[in-house]
């Protein structure tokens, strides 16, 4: 109501310029869809889903700052590249060059993609009791048809970028854990881009179905190996059925020409437990859409994140927890440390339906600004339609405590280390709920690296 006209005008001119740029990529993508149809089997039922999705994308186009959900994140800078949509060749990378990007000190299943294409020599998949394999085979083979029919694109929303992904959905990870299975090893999903294309757009599509009483841990990472721009528009659908336990870790430490738009949808059935930890340390622009739908009673959902960025990086966390049934809990805890000219966005929403009595929802977002050029926009929202609930959110923005700094410095801890210690402590809440010790160590190392300190303790 009170936005000045001037700012609105400013916006609209920006929008006009932006439109011409966007039109190009948008048109290119729509044209590519026809080429894409030649590559895939269009007689499969899944192709109807794709055709519908491309229409949806065509009507909506790319989101602009006018959309409330994208108010603080502009895609202008990343949409201007001339992305290749289909990488031409199969690219090969030597394991030793990329070993460091894996959690390699424990035994894991691996699903590895290079420039969007599956790399069988780097991967370690299985069909032994559980299915850890590829989306492309799941979409085509009849033995997976039932699962695809029941789960594929069932909870992904119809917003423009998700629709774009759905339209081109072909490759990604397919994980199905049947009843009563405890998956012994974590599963790593890693995407590499080699930089053989001048600019690359990849759209991985993952489907994870965890049946009753089963337990799985998944680690996801996107890594660009050169400075060529890469845009990843990834969509993951996770189904946690009755009493299932799903632990999902996203490690985002890409180089500064790589951008990531990640949309993850989690559908939970009764008494299930799902957690998603997002560690955002890199990338040019990172947008995490994380949506949880609680379709059952006594569900626990956890979404946590640590963001430590600098330079001109931008990280946007957009979360939604939809409490549909009674007696459920949700915990959100996002910590952010912003240096240089970086910008951070947190847009969290807790929606409690009328029937979702006895809901316990908690949302926290704490931020530290280290530079005057850094900025943070946060919008923690509560929408509550039930009366017998406990919902709270808290949000703070501040600095490192000067007296604590003084305390440590007066005891001989150098400034840099003292700062690092405080930042570790600041993000400790999030680290505490990480269940794989090797990930904790890895994250600690990445943080220490980023801060330029050598602290070797466990958190």
């Amino acid at each position, binding site marked *: *109501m009170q936005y000045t*006209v001037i700012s609105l005008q400013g916006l609209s001119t920006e929008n006009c310029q932006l439109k011409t740029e966007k039109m190009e990529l948008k048109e290119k993508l729509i044209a590519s869809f026809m080429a894409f149809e030649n590559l895939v089997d269009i007689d499969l039922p899944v192709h109807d889903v794709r055709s519908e999705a491309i229409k949806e994308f065509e009507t909506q186009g790319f989101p602009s700052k006018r959309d409330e959900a994208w108010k603080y994140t502009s895609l202008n800078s990343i949409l201007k590249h001339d992305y290749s949509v289909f990488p031409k060749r199969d690219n090969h990378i030597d394991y030793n060059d990329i070993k460091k990007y894996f959690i390699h000190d424990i035994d894991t299943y691996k699903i590895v993609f290079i420039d969007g294409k599956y790399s069988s020599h780097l991967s370690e998949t299985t069909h032994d009791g559980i299915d850890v394999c590829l989306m492309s085979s799941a979409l085509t083979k009849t033995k997976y048809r039932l699962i695809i029919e029941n789960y594929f694109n069932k909870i992904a929303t119809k917003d423009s970028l998700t629709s774009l992904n759905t339209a081109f959905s072909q490759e990604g990870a397919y994980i199905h854990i049947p009843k009563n299975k405890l998956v012994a090893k974590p599963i790593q999903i890693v995407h590499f881009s080699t930089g053989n294309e001048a600019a690359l757009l990849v759209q991985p599509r993952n489907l994870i179905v965890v049946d009753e009483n089963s337990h799985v841990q998944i680690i996801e990472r996107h890594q660009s190996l050169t400075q060529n721009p890469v845009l990843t528009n990834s969509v993951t659908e996770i189904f946690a059925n009755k009493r299932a336990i799903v632990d999902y870790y996203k490690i985002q430490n890409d180089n500064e020409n790589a951008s990531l738009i990640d949309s993850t949808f989690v559908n939970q059935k009764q008494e299930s437990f799902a957690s998603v930890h997002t560690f955002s340390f890199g990338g040019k622009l990172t947008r995490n859409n994380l949506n949880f739908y609680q379709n059952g009673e006594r569900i626990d959902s956890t979404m946590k994140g640590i963001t430590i960025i600098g330079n001109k990086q931008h990280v946007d966390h957009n979360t939604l927890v939809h409490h549909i049934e009674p007696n459920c809990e949700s915990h959100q805890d996002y910590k952010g440390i912003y240096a240089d000219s970086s910008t951070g966005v947190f847009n969290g929403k807790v929606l409690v339906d009328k029937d979702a009595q006895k809901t316990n929802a908690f949302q926290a977002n704490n931020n530290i600004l280290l530079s*005057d050029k850094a900025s943070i926009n946060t919008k923690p929202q509560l929408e509550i339609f039930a009366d017998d*609930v406990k919902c709270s959110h808290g949000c*703070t*923005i*501040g600095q490192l405590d000067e007296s604590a700094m003084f305390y440590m410095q007066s005891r001989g801890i150098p400034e840099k280390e003292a700062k690092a210690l405080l930042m570790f402590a600041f993000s400790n809440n999030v680290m505490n709920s990480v269940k794989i010790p090797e990930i904790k160590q890895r994250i600690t190392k990445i943080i220490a690296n980023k801060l330029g300190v050598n602290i070797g303790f466990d958190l």
Partner: protein
Amino acid sequence: MTKYTEDDLREELKTKEYEYGFYTDIESDTFPIGLNEDVVRAISLKKEEPEWMTDWRLEAFRAWEEMIEPEWANVNYVKPDFQSISYYSAPNTKPKYDSLDEVDPELLETFKKLGISLDEQKALAGVAMDVVIDSVSVATTFKKTLNEKGIIFCSMSEAIKEHPELVRKHIGTVVPQKDNFYAALNSAVFSDGSFCYIPKGVRCPMELSTYFRINQANTGQFERTLVIADEGSYVSYLEGCTAPSRDENQLHAAVVELIAMDDAEIKYSTVQNWFPGNSEGKGGVFNFVTKRGLCEKNAKISWTQVETGSAITWKYPSCILKGDNSVGEFYSIAVTNNYQQADTGTKMIHLGKNTKSTIISKGISAGKSQNSYRGLVQISARAENARNFSQCDSLLMGNDCGAHTFPYIEVKNKSSIIEHEATTSKIGEDQIFYCNQRGIDTEKAIALIVNGFSKEVLNKLPMEFAVEAQKLLEISLEGSVG
């Protein structure tokens, strides 16, 4: 007494009718419905305004024509048809009165029903009243006392005639004509309002208050208030509203501008009780208000509001903390019942160094109502050491209502400290149990809890108003507040 439960309370809330719904039959001078440039000119002519004012209105009108009605608020309603509203209505019985005896007895009766008789107010002597019936001021009291101090407190139309230099200099500086859809509409067609100027270094000796009432059927009320506190001055301004029961939705689009110059302090309190519509959600006032204050160096603006009425409330009293060390405060209680919808909150724009702001917002929803808090805290890059604390609590009564929080926090300065917290809960069974156990019956317990819940804000109201605010809470949530 039989056991009083929350269910009983809910039942009572449902059936509670608007007590102050009545209609005073005063002959009115009303314009035909519709809005165009001629109507804007006619309003200006009617009020014998100078040319610059007419032009200013026309400029606003032309801007308004280009604008579209905003839709982003979390409310649902049938949009008013701006061409089916009459834009001017003034009580016919002129001229103005010097004493109460001369005032239309029917009017006095109206105030008696409202429980705010002028006599009583006069006796209390602390309050000067600028009574607004519909759009034109018909009585002003205590003017003399204020005159002695050099304080100007009069209706807007009077101010335009008698202090054009002040009005011309300041009007539209805080809320520009083109600020938003409703502010533009108001700028074009505002009928009257209050004007207040406190000279340098003067501490206003009494609480200034204006009572607004929508009276004439089908007349949108477009109030324009301008309060200027010159350097080092202090003023406490009170505004209260009640409106009679009407079946058609009435539109209220007011603009309030506050200017606090260096070292000045303005305290602006509102008790709002426009007709909220009946228990089926029929009728009720649309309240689309733009309120904003500008703080210069070391200045302070404090907004306190108690919102119990209106079918739709859409209101964000804001502070622009332009000067260094300036302070903005916002204390609010919003109660919604039946089918009421409120989307209210504040904006704190920190521009100067060492600026501070506090936001305390309490929402109580009952019946089938929806209550939203929407706030913005913005820290600009040069607002060093800015400090904000926000707290938004919601209390839900019954399972058909909703409480929503939409805080926007935008920070561009590393030395600022921002805290925001929000909670949503209902009256806990354990709280009631605790009280029952100690011999407090359930009704009293609920009263106690609701009172305690809103205490922080009620405490901020001036004495004279706190009593009335309590009364209004009682009407809105009768049975729960003792």
